[in-house]
């Protein structure tokens, strides 16, 4: 299970910057160019694929963010005069090749040049006007495979399987100079830096942003925002050196009356030492959301007095309820099966006043398989007549539904039942993170702001040790690794479903979510590197890399939902029926050129935002005016109309 060794080495070596070899491929094969010309689709296609990528692809956004601080030119790559992409700071060209064919699944084969840097692959067509451009951060490459080879008349073909729901295929002429490496061999080296003893690009990327994203989250102030410490909860420094639990953050909030020594004994009873700790506390009822890993019950039904006392203390901290709900996120069968590995679940005999509920959410392997099936269904071609049943057979939406339903039950228990809940799965870093963070998103409007959401990710996902390095496999060529799983993607999908149902309740827009997912893979920022807070500290990630939040918070207007209204203290209860969930086409099907947003919604939202600011300003002005006047003339009129809390309307 432990794969952390791979990341340990990544920062230590500096990559020797290679000289770009421009004339790498001899490129005069008439027969081949004829063939590709035959397959050439109408030229209009290139324009739309190009603009598709311009609008959606992470790579262009990345390049634009790099450009932005200096020049106002946003979409440099639209300019067909430009031969090369704008390189990022410390990005170096590693190899270039002419006469490469890219087999676009939508528009057919395109011929052009390829450039590989230590950050990206850049393909630009030479046979189309306007040029077709493909700009791909190497971080999204999951696997590179050589297809065909010698058999196909001297063509060498490479397939790139990407983590972001697409596959790319390139081909070039067989090397005459057999000593020369194909550009794709170079690509492999830089796509999997960790496997090749190189450094992930995030450590080289030297962009400076006005905002410092590493300052977004501070555990102490976040607990303080929630009112912790209070009379029932305290902050402990027991894990300051990650001795109690190496996958937990250094700052933990625990019940007041449990001393540190007892925490150690509780840790011994919980898998990986992940004891129940506070995630969120209700500002009024003091009902809490706590998270942990499974108890080490084992086949013999072991018990731990300290653990029982501990859970009792969690319950007692909430005076409103004499019950505690333990949500075991797993299906009951799986939880039981864990007993033979020493794990298991709390028996209701041992834990008095606790009620155990299984939420039936499947494990990372099931989710990985589901997303793989989804990719098969949506990329590249969609079978229209069987679309819905194909979608159903992936079970993706069903999993989304179960996760949302679980989070809803947690939120409902806390909000309506005023009962504290304990959430765990096996290790408490995948499904548990999904559920606690979604429940907190429903319960606390702070997390629905842009900064609040960043805090939520930093807290529930990053600091509590969701193993991003393992689940995503940054820079690692071992694409079959069973530890990879789209747990985080699934969470973001759930968030998107919430934004669909409550369009005015979130400060961020869809683009924000897509951007987060794009940079989950891009390896441009350090945010999602490593598996735990401890590792991140050891690698000096905050010192040596840029945070994704630095980039996002430096241009918030791109990510803001103009319809947002801060419904403070308003709890969202989404409809979780499959009838009201939708596939996130804006993410999963965005590579399909037919799948473009029908309406320039983005732009209109921005205009709207400006309008709203105007209005708000005006209201303030008038309000002042009114108070002035009523103060001066007479006291008959009470100042401004009071604004009652507007309820959230679901949009079904």
């Amino acid at each position, binding site marked *: 299970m432990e794969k952390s060794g791979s990341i340990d080495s990544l920062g230590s070596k500096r990559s020797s910057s290679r000289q770009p070899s421009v004339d790498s491929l001899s490129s005069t094969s008439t027969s081949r160019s004829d063939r590709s010309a035959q397959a050439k689709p109408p030229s209009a296609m290139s324009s739309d694929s190009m603009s598709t990528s311009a609008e959606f692809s992470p790579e262009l956004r990345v390049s634009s963010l790099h450009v932005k601080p200096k020049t106002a030119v946003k979409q440099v790559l639209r300019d067909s005069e430009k031969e090369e992409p704008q390189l990022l700071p410390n990005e170096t060209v590693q190899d270039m090749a002419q006469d490469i064919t890219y087999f676009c699944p939508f528009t057919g084969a395109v011929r052009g040049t390829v450039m590989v840097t230590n950050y990206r692959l850049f393909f630009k067509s030479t046979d189309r006007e306007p040029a077709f451009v493909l700009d791909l951060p190497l971080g999204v490459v999951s696997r590179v495979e050589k297809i065909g080879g010698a058999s196909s008349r001297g063509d060498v073909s490479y397939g790139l399987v990407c983590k972001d729901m697409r596959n790319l295929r390139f081909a070039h002429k067989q090397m005459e100079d057999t000593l020369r490496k194909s550009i794709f061999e170079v690509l492999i080296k830089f796509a999997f830096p960790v496997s090749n003893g190189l450094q992930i690009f995030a450590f080289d990327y030297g962009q400076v942003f006005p905002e410092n994203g590493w300052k977004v989250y501070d555990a102490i102030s976040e607990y303080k925002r929630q009112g912790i410490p209070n009379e029932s909860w305290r902050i402990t420094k027991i894990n300051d050196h990650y001795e109690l639990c190496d996958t937990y953050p250094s700052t933990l909030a625990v019940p007041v009356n449990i001393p540190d020594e007892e925490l150690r004994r509780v840790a011994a009873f919980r898998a990986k030492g992940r004891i129940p700790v506070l995630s969120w506390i209700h500002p009024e009822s003091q009902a809490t959301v706590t998270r942990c890993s499974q108890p080490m019950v084992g086949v013999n039904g072991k018990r731990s007095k300290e653990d029982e006392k501990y859970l009792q203390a969690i319950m007692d901290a909430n005076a409103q309820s004499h019950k505690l709900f333990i949500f075991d996120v797993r299906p009951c069968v799986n939880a039981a099966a864990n007993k033979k590995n020493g794990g298991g679940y709390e028996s209701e005999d041992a834990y008095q006043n606790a009620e155990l509920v299984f939420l039936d959410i499947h494990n990372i392997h099931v989710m990985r398989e589901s997303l793989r099936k989804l990719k098969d269904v949506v990329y590249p071609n969609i079978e229209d007549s*069987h679309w*819905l049943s194909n979608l159903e057979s992936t079970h993706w939406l069903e999993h989304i539904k179960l996760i949302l*339903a679980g989070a809803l039950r947690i939120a409902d228990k806390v909000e309506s039942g005023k009962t504290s809940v304990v959430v765990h799965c096996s290790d408490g870093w995948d499904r548990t993170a999904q559920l606690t963070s979604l429940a907190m998103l429903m319960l606390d409007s702070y997390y629905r702001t842009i900064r609040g959401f960043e805090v939520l990710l930093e807290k529930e996902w990053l600091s509590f040790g969701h193993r991003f390095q393992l689940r995503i496999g940054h820079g690692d060529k071992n694409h079959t690794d069973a530890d990879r799983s789209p747990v985080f993607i699934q969470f973001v999908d759930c968030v998107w479903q919430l934004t669909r149902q409550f369009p005015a309740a979130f400060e961020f827009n869809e683009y924000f979510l897509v951007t987060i997912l794009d940079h989950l893979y891009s390896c441009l920022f350090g945010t999602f590197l490593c598996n735990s807070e401890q590792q991140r500290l050891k690698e000096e990630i905050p010192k040596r890399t840029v945070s994704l939040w630095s980039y996002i918070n430096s241009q918030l207007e791109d990510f803001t939902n103009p319809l947002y209204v801060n419904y403070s203290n308003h709890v969202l209860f989404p409809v979780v029926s499959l009838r009201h969930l939708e596939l996130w086409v804006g993410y999963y099907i965005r590579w399909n050129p037919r799948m473009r947003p029908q309406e320039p919604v983005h732009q209109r939202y921005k205009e709207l935002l400006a309008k709203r600011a105007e209005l708000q300003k*005006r209201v303030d002005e008038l309000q002042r005016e009114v108070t002035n006047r009523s103060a001066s003339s007479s006291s008959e*009129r009470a100042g401004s109309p009071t604004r009652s809390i507007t309820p959230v*309307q679901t949009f*079904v």
Partner: protein
Amino acid sequence: MLTGSKTTFKVRQMLPDIKERMLSQSGVNARSRDVFGLRCLPGECVLQRAVMVRKKLTAREGRGWLSGTLFCTHFRVAFVPQDSPKPDDNADPVLLGDHDVALASIDKVVVVGPNRTKLVTPNSSLKFTPEELVLYCRDMRVICFLFDRLTPDAQVIEITYTIAKTYQPLKPGSVLSFQNAALGSVEMKQFLSNRRRDTHMNWFESTSDWEQELERCGASGWRVSSVNDRFEMSTSLPRFIVVPQKVLDTELKKSFSHFNEGRIPRWCWRHPRGSDLLRMASFQNNIYHEKDDIRNLEMILFGCQSSLCVVVELGEELPSPADIQLAHSRLRALCLGDISTSVSVPDDKWLSTLESTHWLDYTRLCLRKASEVACLLRGGHLTVALQEAEDRDVSCVVSSLVQVMCDPHCRTQRGFQGLVQKEWVMAGHRFYSRINYHRDNDKEEAPVFLLFLDCVWQLWSQYPSRFQLTEDFLLAVHDSVHLPLFSSFLANCQRERCKRSQNHGQSYTPVNGWRDGPHPDSSSDPCDPPLPPVWDWALQYSKRRQDRFTQPVPPSPPLQPLLNGNLNTNPDAHKLTDTIPGSVFLFSRGTFSCPANLLPWRSTSSGIYKKSHRRAPSSEGVPGLERLLKAWALTDIPQGLTSNSGSQGPLDPFEPLLPVLMGPCMGLWKECYLRGALHAQAFSHPISANHPHPVERLAAEVQQLKDKLAQASAGPDVKPPIKTAERPLTDANLNQNTNNGTFLFPGSRPHGTCVSRVTAPPTSTNHQHASSRGRPPTTAAPSRSSHRDNSSKHTFLFGHSSSTEARPDQRYHPAPNNAKLPKSNGSVAS
């Protein structure tokens, strides 16, 4: 998993009851309103009443519950919320209030008691006191009333029985009694006969109506023929049809017999690039024909185009009425999730079950065919003739969809109403048989029109800002279809409609034929009961809900009335250079062909063929046509979209709205089909209803503040309450639109709006600006500056900055005008 949660949520739902109940009790006691606020129609009497009832609100209505009183009359089940304003007795009667449902649209009555549900039929007896009353409606609404402990048991049981006994119009004749209950009273008749019909839409009933349409489309070379004035040529065609100018009525008469039901090719619409859209039934085989018949027919078919004609065969690829009926009944069963039979599709089979209804397939097929036709028409200067065996079902769908795609006018409320008049009501879609009001002809029943509405909704959901009409309007049309009250739907063709009004006293003499008087403009003809047209929305919907039928800010300027055939600014791009003039092609199953025997009698005698001045059919034109269609495939979609991209660059308003028909892009019209689905509300929390969108509230607040300011400075002669009372009208409208992201519109707004806004007094101008903040500042600014120069920064939104704050009081004085202003929103939007 869900069953487990069920109980807990049920308990939770009960919690707020107590609070609310106590509230409602005190509320009722305090007011003690007579008849509990129900405003009866003339002659309508309340059969039963139940107090302390709560209505479950749908997601669209804001969820939660509304307490009030439930009524059952001969005509409707009415619900009056307890805090609704006292009805104005002088207002025009509205058939259905916001919370009412007509008995005729109820499909099933179900009661829920402790631990059981029961389907209530007229004969059934209840052995328990219901806690909930659920009305399943034919328009796919599900309306749920909850009885409190405080509702007297006797009332609960009685009203349930009463509804069960009166709702079902199973027998023929019960429809008539229903109509009489609604419209039969003397006062109602009087009222209806005095009603003006909407003059802003085209009814296609008179020669001049058609001529107006010809002029609007710039279709020269066509004329209105009254050859069918007495329905002698074709019983199902309207009295007036549009045919080529050069074809004489005598020549025309010979053609009728060659077509099924005499439905000869008729002009429907002209594309701005000069192509004509025609409709016709299939050819009648085995009929003796004369020499000139071919020539006549060709003259009709080619219309005024000399180049070529494409006959689009609709029957083979599109669903038959029986298919549509089956799909719709499956969809209905799936979406309603009937609790009485507890047959509900499990969530994990929802998608595949939805697919197996084939409803979405059928909408896709119709949209695809319409897109193909739209692309052909865009090619310019050709005739496209839609051919369906009877020319009364899917050809209505396709011809009207093509126009919705290509003609911005048809995307306005009035334009759409005219379109339905033209292509459905007048063209003889058999509404009466297809809707099957009497439940006596199940074989014929098929919701073809509802399929069309779904297709329009698909277009709307993909291009919301290109429509002036809204989803609410489509829903209103959808629901009205199920009410057997409207002349538009209660007949199969114009002849039947005329016949009906004849029975009700219209003068008809067999010798002279129909009276050529002021024409079925029935406002002057007394009928019994005079069925109103469906388009008289004020009969059904309050002003507040009608205001939601249109976007508050109209999309791109409506380019009426002239879209003349010479829009061909860039003809080369679309021109078919390689076609031979005078060829007829058949387009069927996605391919073009030039069959020798397209006209079935042609092959019998080649001699006749030689008489034709047309050239022999050749396949040379095929590539050109296929190229036109290729545009429809993948390639062209982005082109259509880029033209869409807002403010920069003028967009070609006649670029058809080609829908993306990929599986993931075909949506289910949840607002319609899942409105009442009970599971949809399983987790909803009771919150108060009908709150406008926050941004809109902000605008309202600005207005309120302004009023206060004005009041403070101008003194007592200004009465802001009038305005505040009317504010919510637009609020709610905008709220809906925001949800769907149709807030802002690219492009400028129509000049008419400008004028009305500029001439309005400043305060109200500001109000308008605030409520229609979607408009780009650039267009708003000129209207402002023409009014008075204003250097302040944010003046485009608000007339006066704080520096000019003293001014509103001077300009505020025309108060009476001001009071009307919010209403003008509706007309502005049109």
